[in-house]
């Protein structure tokens, strides 16, 4: 009891201190040349949504009026016209507008809108056309360890550690201990609620490994995105597209004869309609299914991040109208509850991605006519009725 109350006091004191210091650290200044708050917030949100070449925690302006950035650099690995080049991203000094030119390996590099460009021969600085596109620089093949890559590697290592330790526990005894007790019900949940009913009793074992991997990968990354480190890995199109392509490859190559016949030459419809249906089904199987998977995850996570940050930004935009305390309180309440919803969304999106992957794989491996012979129960369940009806 005594311990709890001391924690409570410390917690309240910290929150109070944060509120008070927040109130004092933002004096309204009308200096000329200061960036407009709305534009600044917009730039900050866009910056967060994008991937970046350094791990940026926060920035502040010190008493001397200098902009200070806190974080650490990440390695830049690019394949340019002169071959492989590596250097640390601190060489760019947080510049994102192509002003700082880094010369390495006989090539000049600039960073422009989070992309690395290589200056053409003889150029010393970037020139822009009207659309703010660089005219004398070309893109390079970028294999950098960016912030998202760090996130992916962290989660990969964590999963490798957590699940291999869980697996090794089953060698000695039946019941896992420690952290494994948290993981075991989740693994069983994915197997029994997602994999088994959607893929079917006969084939589910083969695909459960992939479904478990993708479920935990997406879920942990989504949760990581809600921490103040500001990872936005599952909000990158490249990451979600890659996951969707994995699913596409799996269900395309494990599809049985009946699956392909239902796509290419649909039985039970007039002959003339079959080619039309084949086009629609092919587009559905090869393009629409993976596209819906990748867009859903990307859009949900990005939208969630934008909403959370916009609500936090209320603190600054409504400061003049509601006062410092009022704006902070409003922003805190709104962003607190939306973050709680985001925790739910993080799970839900991982669940839906896994669920739909399982559904697509299940469609590809389903055996239509003779699947229910050895079912063991005579009363038709909903699936039987639906299948007979269709």
């Amino acid at each position, binding site marked *: 009891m005594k311990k709890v109350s001391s924690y409570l006091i410390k917690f309240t004191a910290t929150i109070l201190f944060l509120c008070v210091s927040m109130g004092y650290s933002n004096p309204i200044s009308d200096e000329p040349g200061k960036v407009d708050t709305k534009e600044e917030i917009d730039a900050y949100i866009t910056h967060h949504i994008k991937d970046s070449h350094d791990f940026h925690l926060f920035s502040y302006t010190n008493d001397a009026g200098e902009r200070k950035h806190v974080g650490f650099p990440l390695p830049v690995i690019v394949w340019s016209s002169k071959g492989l080049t590596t250097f640390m991203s601190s060489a760019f000094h947080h510049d994102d507008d192509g002003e700082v030119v880094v010369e390495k390996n006989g090539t000049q590099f600039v960073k422009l809108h989070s992309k690395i460009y290589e200056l053409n021969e003889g150029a010393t600085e970037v020139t822009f056309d009207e659309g703010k596109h660089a005219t004398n620089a070309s893109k390079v093949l970028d294999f950098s360890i960016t912030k998202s890559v760090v996130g992916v590697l962290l989660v990969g290592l964590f999963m490798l550690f957590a699940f291999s330790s869980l697996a090794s526990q089953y060698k000695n005894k039946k019941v896992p201990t420690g952290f494994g007790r948290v993981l075991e019900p989740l693994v069983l949940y994915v197997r029994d609620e997602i994999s088994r009913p959607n893929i079917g009793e006969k084939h589910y074992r083969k695909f459960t490994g992939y479904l478990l991997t993708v479920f935990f990968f997406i879920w942990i990354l989504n949760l990581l995105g809600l921490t103040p480190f500001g990872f936005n890995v599952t909000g990158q199109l490249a990451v979600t597209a890659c996951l969707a392509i994995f699913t596409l490859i799996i269900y395309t190559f494990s599809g049985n004869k009946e699956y392909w016949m239902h796509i290419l030459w649909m039985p039970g419809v007039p002959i003339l309609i079959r080619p039309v249906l084949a086009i629609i089904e092919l587009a559905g199987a090869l393009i629409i299914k993976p596209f*819906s*998977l990748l*867009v*859903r995850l990307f*859009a*949900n996570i990005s*939208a969630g991040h934008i909403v959370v940050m916009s609500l936090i930004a209320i603190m600054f935009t409504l400061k003049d109208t509601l006062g410092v305390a009022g704006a902070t309180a409003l922003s805190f309440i709104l962003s607190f509850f939306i973050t709680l919803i985001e925790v739910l969304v993080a799970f*839900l999106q991982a*669940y*839906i991605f896994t*669920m*739909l992957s399982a*559904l697509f794989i299940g469609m590809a491996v389903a055996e239509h006519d003779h699947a229910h012979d050895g079912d063991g129960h005579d009363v038709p369940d*909903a699936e039987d009725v639906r299948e007979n009806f269709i």
Partner: protein
Amino acid sequence: MYNLIGAGLIVIGAGIGLGQIGGKAMEGIARQPEATGKIQTAMIIIAALLEGLAFGALFLGK
């Protein structure tokens, strides 16, 4: 301006759709409480499909 109107229309459409899904699922659960699990799963899948569509439209309109 127009993209804001478009976003509003998308949200109205998605809202109607989600309302239909949720409402019908509630009715189904009220009629057959023992089928709650199956109904919920189907409801979430369809809501996810709808959501994918709405988000796709929002991003195209942006």
